[in-house]
């Protein structure tokens, strides 16, 4: 796999973030995931980013407690490369997903960075059955050379501690 160039971000801005700009970015990210453009999704993350889906409500750390997903940048790249593999049997047939993003608020902002909180609902259809996921996302965003970038992303599923079938498509 060759990692793609950074995609052109909508609405190039500079300086402080506002909620509308963040929402546009989150909707863009959701679209990349829904359309299976995982390489482009990966390119949104910084070179030392992490992506975290805790296994418990209010989980304090990914280090002393298991996580549904906890990827440093190296493992996130491997995850995305695997998603492109024709031998990924847990994605044969492929899932189709549909995400709604809402309730976007800026939790904390610095001059060129902010933490954004949002809600999502995700429908995943695969092999004659449909699952629904929902929860809260936190994104730490900065302005990079090619546009907004994700420093870290945390996704808290409402049912994070339920028994799940395999979770393959990222949230």
């Amino acid at each position, binding site marked *: 796999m060759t990692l793609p160039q950074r995609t052109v971000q909508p609405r190039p801005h500079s300086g402080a973030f506002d909620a509308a700009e963040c929402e546009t970015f989150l909707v863009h990210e959701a679209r990349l995931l829904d359309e299976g453009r995982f390489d482009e999704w990966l390119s949104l993350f910084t070179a030392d980013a992490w992506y975290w889906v805790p296994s418990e409500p209010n989980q304090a750390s990914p280090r002393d407690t298991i996580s549904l997903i906890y990827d440093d940048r190296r493992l996130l790249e*491997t995850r995305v490369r695997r998603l492109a593999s024709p031998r990924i049997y847990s994605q044969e047939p492929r899932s189709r997903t549909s995400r709604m993003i809402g309730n976007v608020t800026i939790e904390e902002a610095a001059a060129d960075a902010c933490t954004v909180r949002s809600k999502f609902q995700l429908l995943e259809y695969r092999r004659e059955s449909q699952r629904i996921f929902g929860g809260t996302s936190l994104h730490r965003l900065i302005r990079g050379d090619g546009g907004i970038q994700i420093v870290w992303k945390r996704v808290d599923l409402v049912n994070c501690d339920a028994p799940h079938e395999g979770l393959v498509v990222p949230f």
Partner: protein
Amino acid sequence: MTPITGDDIRALVQPGRVSRRLYTDPDIFDLELERIFGSAWIYVGHESQVKIPGDFVATRIGRKPLLLVRDAEGNIQLLHNQCAHRGSMVVASNGGHTSEFRCCYHGWTYHLDGRLKVAPLLHGYPAHFDPKNPEFAMLRVPRVASYRGFVFGSLAEHGPSLEDYLGFMTTSFDDMVDRAPDGELEVAGGVFKHTYRGNWKLYLENLCDAAHPLFVHQSSIDAARQQSDEVHSDGSGEIAIRQMRQNGAPYSFWEENVGIWTYPNGHSFLGDYHDDAKLVAALNDPVFRDYIATMEAKQGKEKTRRTLEVRRWNSNVYPNLSFMSQFQQLRVVHPISVNETVVHTYNYRLKGAPARMFENTISFANIVNGTGSLVLTDDLEIYTRIGLGLTSAGSEWLEIGRGYAGDLPAEHGGRRGKNSTSEVYIRNMFDAWLGYMANDVGTEGTRATAPQAVAEMRQ
């Protein structure tokens, strides 16, 4: 329904193959709950989950909801989570600390050991009703026993002791506990729960299967091999990627370097697969160096060397437990229906070890047992596909004959494969299965000893 006789059952298991009905027939599933889960020793928790009197945790045997409790005298109790009055589940939480159990329906209240303490309006009942009768209680599971902190329960009044039942597999538990510098483990780090639409037996049948990774896990093997090690990692991804690459070891490795051992009562372990030098605990890893130094300071050099040279991958305790002593992981397989299974996985902290060792355990759990793992998700897909495949009226028989002609007797009453790709561990589980299931005339007590007899008969 016509009763299933012992002869019916015996006709379903032949040398090197088994009937598809074992994975699809709801009547056989019900019989498994009664005869296997109704008598075998089943893992129900760890003593560290109920440290002091009043601590309790929800658990189960088969589909029966139970409570593991430390009672007022400090004894471990295993209670049916059911009120003696109208049958309501008394405790709805996953665990906690309490001085008594009170049913929320009419206030029937129980001691920590299950005895009825008090109930309102105890008048006007017919003659059979006696609140002092031990049957008016949250009933105790007949037998509970621990091995080095691991607690098992048996729904049968009689049967072999836990240590006799585990046999040589006690050494795999020893391996896990001995790796703790202070000689003790504690459950920590949360519980993965995953589910698949397939039969419960498929899970353990996969865990010592040395021939599947090259196919099932090809996507993660390829992705990990292509991954640049120059890219930033905080350590967790590095552990995961090393594990995925190791899954890509060629057949020659599995056939020449790795062994599989099986024992009476359906147990087995896969050996030699990884060792400390290949994985998380690489000898040049500063965390592991600290750990070895701590072990040597507390236990001496010689004992440390002997402990760390034990190399086992998955150890399977029939019917539904699999653990990994080197990395302190344990999975419990819960049958839900003939075609639905839930698996809970746990981690154990090595008491007295450097904190970073447990961080490695967590990273390892995420890739090996994680619901969103790049590896386990493909295994779950296979279990579900077997469930789907068996809905067709294709072949009556499923093959478990790989390596059949090469099985060898082993020490401690066991049988081993010529090498790790043998399906001897599946055949061994079905010997145990037959012992429980075909015994349609015996008592519960004799059922539990039967698998060993069958295994010996086959040798």
